[in-house]
């Protein structure tokens, strides 16, 4: 019993130690707002700690000094209005010391006026879409951790579940306004290092702003339960210098980047060759497999055997290829499967349907061209 009591004591003191490891405290972050939030958090934390220690010390004092086993006699006191007033007023004053700075910080947080640039963020089941409103670029950002790592077939990488194929790239020292919304259910766009969290709600556009002081890669994740793959839709923000950002922008638009610095080395821009899409069986299977592992395998299983979702073994006996294409495009009403009409290109859908209908005991399917998929779109 004594050992248990001691270990409880050690356990209760351990949070104070944990506070010494910044990895387990709130991040101070890299924006003025996140610094302010961090300071507020520490202020409230110390006030709460003060109250907790006060209550604990009083309790322990009573437990030690007024023990029945040591013959303590109970007093007959039933109350005292004066102390009741004291412990009503003191917490009230403490709360005011919290409320005032909180109010000031909050007023700053909601002031999204005069941004230098605007990025629309659209939460989707289950990826993020970013639209650079002033630049006319847009792209999807999907989890890039391989399924084999999730299933434990491969060792996990450093950024397990916190890596994406297309990070959202932004410049430092600019006021960036995010316009957050959703295409389907509620999500929440959150990056702790930027002090940023805004719910993505269909039919609403919520505004938030950041001003990043340091170049770097900042990682967050969807914070509002949004269905099956809620845990698999990370957010990666890459903050670059103005120069680096413009260069990235040019790349995205397929333009040559002209540095504003006359001494900068001239980069010869070669527009990328349009890739030739090979239509032989092996190339389609290889491409389809990639698409499948990225978008389908988490539920339908790496080998198509299903699990949470229906099995794909023998699926061609149930559905024709045209039907499969329409299911991938628009899903089936009442099923958990998301519609991929906006997520996948015609070619990708053609590839993945071909891959599925040529694997796992399925009858050999016909070659599907991107045009077939384009025709199937309503």
């Amino acid at each position, binding site marked *: 019993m004594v050992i248990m009591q001691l270990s409880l004591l050690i356990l209760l003191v351990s949070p104070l130690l944990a506070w010494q490891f910044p990895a387990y405290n709130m991040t101070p972050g890299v924006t003025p707002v996140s610094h302010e939030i961090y300071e507020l958090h520490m202020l409230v934390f110390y006030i709460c700690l003060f109250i907790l220690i006060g209550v604990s010390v*009083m309790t322990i004092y009573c437990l030690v000094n007024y023990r029945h086993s040591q013959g303590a006699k109970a007093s007959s006191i039933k109350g005292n209005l004066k102390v009741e007033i004291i412990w009503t007023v003191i917490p009230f004053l403490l709360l005011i010391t919290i409320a005032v700075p909180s109010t000031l910080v909050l007023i700053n947080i909601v002031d999204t006026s005069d941004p230098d640039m605007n990025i629309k963020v659209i939460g989707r089941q289950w990826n993020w879409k970013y639209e650079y409103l002033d630049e006319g670029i847009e792209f999807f950002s999907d989890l890039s951790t391989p399924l084999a790592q999730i299933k434990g077939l491969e060792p996990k990488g450093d950024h397990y579940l916190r890596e994406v194929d297309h990070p959202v790239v932004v410049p430092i020292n600019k006021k960036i306004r995010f316009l957050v919304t959703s295409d389907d259910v509620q999500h929440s766009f959150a990056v702790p290092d930027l002090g940023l969290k805004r719910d993505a709600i269909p039919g609403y556009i919520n505004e938030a702003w950041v001003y990043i002081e340091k170049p770097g890669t900042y990682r967050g994740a969807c914070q509002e339960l949004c269905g099956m793959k809620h845990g698999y839709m990370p957010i990666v923000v890459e903050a670059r210098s103005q120069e680096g950002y413009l260069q990235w922008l040019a790349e995205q638009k397929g333009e040559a980047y002209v540095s504003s610095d006359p001494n900068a080395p001239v980069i010869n821009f070669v527009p990328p060759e349009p890739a030739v899409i090979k239509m032989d069986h092996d190339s389609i299977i290889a491409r389809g497999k990639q698409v499948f592992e990225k978008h389908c395998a988490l539920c339908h299983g790496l080998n198509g055997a299903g699990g949470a979702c229906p099995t794909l073994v023998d699926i061609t006996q149930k559905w024709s290829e045209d039907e499969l294409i329409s299911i991938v495009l628009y899903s089936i009403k009442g099923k958990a499967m998301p519609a991929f009409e906006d997520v996948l290109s015609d070619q990708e859908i053609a590839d993945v349907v071909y891959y599925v209908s040529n694997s796992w005991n399925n009858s050999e399917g016909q070659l599907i061209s991107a045009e077939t998929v384009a025709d199937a779109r309503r």
Partner: protein
Amino acid sequence: MDAVQKTRSARLMRWVMTTNHKDIGTLYLWFSFSMFLLAGGMALLMRIELSMPGEQIMQPLFYNQLVTAHGLVMIFGAIMPALTGFANWQIPLMIGASDLAFPRLNNWSFWLLPFAITLLLSSFVVGGPPPDFGWTFYAPLSTTYGPPGTDAMILAIHLLGISSIIGSINIIATILNLRAPGMTLMNMPIFVWGWFVTSFLILAIMPILAATVTMVLTDRHFGTSFFSAAGGGDPVLFQHLFWFFGHPEVYVLAMPAFGIISEIIPTFSRKALFGANCMVYAIIAIALLSFIVWVHHMFTTGVLLVTQLFFMYTTMIIAVPTGIKVFNWVATMHRGSISFEPAMLFAIAFVLMFTFGGLSGIMLSVVPADYQYHDSYFVVGHFHYVIVTGVYYALVSGVYYWYPKWTGRMYSMKLANWHFWVTTIAANFTFMPMLFVGLAGMPRRIPDFPLEFAEFNLIASFGSLVFGLAQLLFGFLLIQGLWRPKNVSGQVWDGAKGLEWTISSPPPYHSFMDPPKVVGKTYQ
């Protein structure tokens, strides 16, 4: 039918047909304990999944289904029925009534429960798929995107709501009409006060929950679009409605728990409850405030600045009456004569850990900081400190306190002490790490997590398994106690005050057939 069978079925029918408040209280308590083990088992499955990064034992969809069922069954199947069980047993005994005001209604309000929970969980068995959107069932995840099992859940919530509403009406009618002569409202035990106020809360919020789930139902099947932006509806409206129910619901759970603690601390401090009247005023203040704080669950939805400020201030103010209660409990122990029976151990631990949970609630009320905490594991840690080491501790404490009164037998003190220490250590091992991974940015309701959260999640999983085992010990010692000698006096605890201690242990099947005369205050 031979004689043995006849008596057996008669014995069974006694429990089905009973209108006796003690029988129904017992049914409520055992039912809630079994639901507690069931929903706790679901929590353990989730903790096993979360013990290490990567997929361990289940698919993400099943994880979400467990998240949903765990929350709903714990709240509606375990904690609320357990509190109602206490109300059934204790309120008539404590106010000197012979039974509740509407005994047959009482029978119905219990027997709705097993069917409601069966309906709720049926989609796991008959192939729903079951609901997978968390106990908060936010639209449109539960409407347009909800699985068929959602409809069973909606009907189950209706049944559960009916059960709690008629239970509350019964309790209010009992308290208002059946108090023994001399027991004025301000003389009532604080436990009865807690339940009195809770009953009004339930009457106010359960119809709103019923309306909300009905709107979800019509959105799903009858072409309405209350919560669908595409049809001119509003997904945020759902959150307003849900949390207008949801926040007071927290106090529905907490208020009777406060009451139990307010009975136990004076008994084992052998001293009157400090500031008993202030305790009553604090309960009423908390109840009123609980209706104007709901937006603190929605700070990140983009509500207006003034709205956020208003709800930040009201939420902070709730700390004041809550603080009064905590300080009064401590002041009750001050200059008392304290002994450490298991009930008291749990009550003391309640005071400290509920305070801890409540303080993390103050942190959450600070809107800018909430932008970091919201929907992270910090929130999960916070409300589990409040509900597990708060409300559940009060329930356990209450069982240790009144079990000898109910059964006439004393459980094994030694096992109960073990139960306390193991539970308390394990609870902190389970919920403390959640606060820290939350601060570090781990979102809640995810089946898998990045590597940097691995150590603390492993600790939490380990703690939760030990916690679960300790609760099995609790169940064991309660059952074992039923075979121990029936030799407990009516008074049971030397410091206990109140009408229930003036009659034998166990009390006669029909107690207080002639109402006792109450002179002076309960705690004198």
